[in-house]
């Protein structure tokens, strides 16, 4: 019932939304709200997100109960609730300050999930000002039911393997070498050491030569005409 209601709300919102607020496209927000509604149905907890900013007409906001654009109302969630909150600030072009973002997780639980849990999954607030800001926000919000289950506050949602995949769909943008990704810092460091060795030696040799006192070469002495010693 909740799923159907949220889906209807989401579709209505996606069709009616005049302009994108925040960093999420209306369609992404609708799909996100739907996944939270499904989590709510399984776990009995409410989920939502509310990320304000300084660059658009409205915040990124949505919830499993109200759909995209609707802020979660904690008092309606008697079994518990969890919400991602944040703020994204883009610095002006002429300002010296940098773009910044903060996130926090509010919940009705004393031992609820925290932003450290998100960071453990590689989801850092700073990424909300990067090129993948929307994907980062989707990942953060999507992770909430998993984090709650991880802390034993609700059961895990069942992992469902895809049964049918359209033949035209496939993975793209194959990642680069795993070896280089894992070791490039060491490789750069050790190559630098190898290159530094002859550079150091040549520098020191030059330094030594320049600082050495000039060598005095004595003029050849006049040949002596002394008679050989008598034997």
């Amino acid at each position, binding site marked *: 019932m909740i799923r159907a209601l949220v889906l209807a709300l989401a579709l209505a919102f*996606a069709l009616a939304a005049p302009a994108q607020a*925040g*960093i*999420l*496209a209306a*369609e*992404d927000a*609708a*799909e996100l709200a739907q996944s*939270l509604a*499904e*989590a709510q149905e399984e776990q009995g907890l409410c989920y939502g997100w509310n990320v304000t*900013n300084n*660059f*658009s007409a409205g915040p990124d906001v949505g919830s499993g109960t109200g759909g995209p654009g609707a802020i979660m109302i904690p008092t309606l969630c008697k079994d518990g609730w969890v919400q991602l909150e944040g703020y994204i600030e*883009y610095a002006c072009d002429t300002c010296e300050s940098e773009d910044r973002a903060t996130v926090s997780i509010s919940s009705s639980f004393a031992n609820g999930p925290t932003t450290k849990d998100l960071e*453990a*999954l*590689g*989801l850092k607030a700073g990424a909300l000002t990067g*090129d993948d*800001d*929307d994907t980062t926000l*989707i*990942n953060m919000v*999507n*992770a*909430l039911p*998993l984090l709650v*289950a*991880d802390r034993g506050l609700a059961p*895990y*949602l069942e*992992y*469902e393997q*895809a049964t049918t*995949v*359209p033949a*035209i*769909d*496939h*993975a*793209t943008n194959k*990642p680069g070498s*795993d070896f280089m990704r*894992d070791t490039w810092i*060491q*490789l750069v*460091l*050790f*190559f*630098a*050491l*190898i*290159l*530094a*060795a002859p550079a*150091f*030696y040549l520098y020191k040799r030059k330094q*030594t030569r320049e600082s050495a006192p000039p060598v005095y070469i004595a003029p050849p002495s006049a040949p002596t005409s002394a008679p050989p010693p008598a034997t």
Partner: protein
Amino acid sequence: MRKHAIIASLLAGAGVLGLIFTLTSHGSVRDHIAKTYRQVGTEKAPGKAGSDRKDTVIYASNRSVLQTARDIADHNKPADRRTTEAGAFLRYSDDVVSVVPPTAGTRGSRILVDDEEGGYHRNYGYVGGFWGTYSGPAGSFRGGGPGAGK
């Protein structure tokens, strides 16, 4: 001069030793998971058949989904990752690692190691549109919003 030559030799030696250690000690994420976790099964990988395809290998971890995903990602940095309500998915050059909840009645987490094709097919509902094409519901928009205000 002799002292400087010795120092230079030590620097070069440290660099060469470090390079050798780096080249010989690095293992793939498959190797790491095989050494660290308990294998509980294999199954035919989803997707098109092919001679270069690898079976899916399934492992069990005593640690939770979050902790297991973090442990694996800390050891072998993924190129991309997707976190969803039902698991954490790590993408590598040739492999996809899915860390998902345990089967009912057990604790810890399950780890599914697939090749790229298998991982994309298996987790299409979670990574479709993020790591590749997606023609499912709302497919043309999924995970790719342009982001405003930048």
